[in-house]
């Protein structure tokens, strides 16, 4: 355990109830977040990334349940806290920026009211200095402070996302979780918002969990990355190590499918097959059906999450073969 780690997720399991049985969206996920570090959580749609984020803050809908594991924040297990205790921790210590700010803001309240609400609930700002504080936040996210009295429907997608970012920073949290912050935006706005996030992280010395399916975004912003597949983490480590020398077939597949500027290839490589049904019985290694290195042992014995080099872990029986190719 690293002295810099402020949050550890340990063996988190969150399942959704469905008529076909339990949907094992997150099935034994462990990782750690360090101070001032930007960690990327990468995976396809439906691999459980958002569920991890919601579970960490105990914001799961009633159709889901945390079945096991711990979320240690400064040593205390958040999963054991009551709703009232969580209400104190949420936003004040850990805040979250949701994807698709389309509907993440209350349509009948002005933007100022919604940010002020958070500040006043956690008493981080005195009532008479709220407007000043909001102005400062708006400037930090490069929004015109005069727009704080607007309603969400009067703002564009990019502006709403900036409001979400400003709101997430309003109480000076230690950790900010950004769930696909740029997915709903067009490419140019994406670039601006990402640059904004990067500069804010450095300025405010935040720890950030950046959830995304876009590897190029991760490459730009993150110090560390964890790759998720079908509810489990298959590889994690420092960004350069993982990108230069991936040890898991899935990571390798993902990296290979990124078209690179200098290559002459005309065909895009991809990973055949699709994500397995998380309600049924699954092979021991969930990537089994799509893996080019798969052998019988992969279906029977779950690959252990082991260290392959300092700070670099992976869950694959044959990572040495992957390393070589």
């Amino acid at each position, binding site marked *: 355990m690293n002295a810099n780690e402020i949050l550890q997720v340990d063996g988190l399991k969150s399942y959704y109830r469905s008529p076909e049985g339990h949907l094992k969206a997150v099935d034994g996920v462990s990782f750690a977040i360090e101070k001032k570090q930007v960690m990327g959580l990468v995976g396809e749609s439906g691999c459980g990334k958002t569920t991890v984020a919601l579970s960490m803050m105990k914001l799961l*809908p009633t159709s889901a349940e945390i079945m096991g594991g711990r979320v240690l924040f400064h040593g205390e297990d958040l999963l054991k806290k009551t709703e009232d205790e*969580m*209400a104190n921790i949420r936003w*004040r210590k850990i805040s*979250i920026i949701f994807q698709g700010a389309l509907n993440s803001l209350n349509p*009948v309240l002005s933007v100022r009211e919604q940010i002020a*609400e958070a500040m006043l*609930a956690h008493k981080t700002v005195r009532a008479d200095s709220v407007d000043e504080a909001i102005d400062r936040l708006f400037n930090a996210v490069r929004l015109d402070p005069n727009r704080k009295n607007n309603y969400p*429907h009067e703002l564009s997608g990019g502006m709403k996302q900036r409001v979400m970012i400003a709101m997430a920073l309003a109480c000076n949290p230690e950790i900010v979780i950004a769930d696909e912050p740029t997915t709903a935006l067009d490419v140019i706005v994406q670039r601006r918002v990402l640059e904004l996030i990067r500069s804010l992280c450095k300025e405010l010395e935040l720890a950030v969990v950046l959830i995304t399916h876009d590897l190029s975004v991760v490459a730009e912003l993150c110090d560390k990355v964890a790759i998720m597949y079908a509810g489990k983490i298959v590889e994690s480590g420092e960004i350069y190590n993982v990108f230069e020398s991936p040890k898991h077939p899935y990571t390798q597949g993902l990296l290979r499918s990124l078209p690179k500027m200098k290559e002459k290839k005309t065909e895009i490589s991809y990973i055949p097959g699709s994500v397995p049904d998380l309600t049924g019985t699954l092979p021991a290694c969930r990537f089994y059906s799509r893996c080019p290195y798969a052998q019988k042992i992969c279906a029977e014995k779950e690959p252990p999450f082991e260290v392959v080099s300092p700070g670099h872990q992976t869950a694959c029986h044959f990572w040495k073969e992957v390393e070589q190719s």
Partner: protein
Amino acid sequence: MENLEAQFGLNQPLWVQYIIYLKNTVTGNFGISYQTRTPVGDMVFPALMNTLILLLPATAISIAVGIGIGMIAAWRRGTKEEVAMSGTTLVLYCMPTFWLGLLLLVMGVLYLGLPVGGMFTISFGPENAFARFSDLLQHMALPLATLVLGLVGQYVLVMKGSLLDVLTEDYMVTARAKGIRRRKLMWDHGFRNAVLPMVTLMALNIGLSFGGAIQTETIFSWPGIGLLTYRAILSRDYPALQGAFLVIAVAVILANLIADLLYPFLDPRVVA
């Protein structure tokens, strides 16, 4: 016979009669009732007032109760209390209003000693204002209860549905993530969004409430516009009927207008 016809203007061609009628209406002259030989205007406006004495409190109470029960039902969905509440509401919704009135009439007269009908007991003189008022309340109690029970069902169901929809919206998760406590969550985020369809429902329900008023006034002999309409129809009193119809239509349209004006204040997405 010709005299009567001339008196009522019935010897003119139909379209002339209609133009004269419209002209008269605008100046407040609604014609003479066939039945009572009194000006329809004198009959229709006091009757409307009497109906409003019942309808306005009934609407206010049923909306308040509807919102309250609807919110509780949505918040505690699936529990035994909620199923009982929703079940009772549904059963109420399936009863004809007049039958509800009949039941309340029987119970009220037999067990509570409430008056059997009408708006006032004739024997009270105008001096004793307090006694007159309590007399009015006693006469109002049963018809008011009937109307409220008849209207409340739909408000409960719509509020519950609306709140359930709102609770699944993304902004509710955002609000919870901000550490907002349950009560503020329910009111500032849940209620303020869930109440919007209720305003639209209120506007639509005005027509239904007049239907309920007709039934209630018939059962309790309440001298309102519903009773007047009903009697006019049965005695083929066309001037009275036209007058009543006109007044009801104007009242409904006005009420809808008010709802239309109110809505933008509650929902900033709608431009006034």
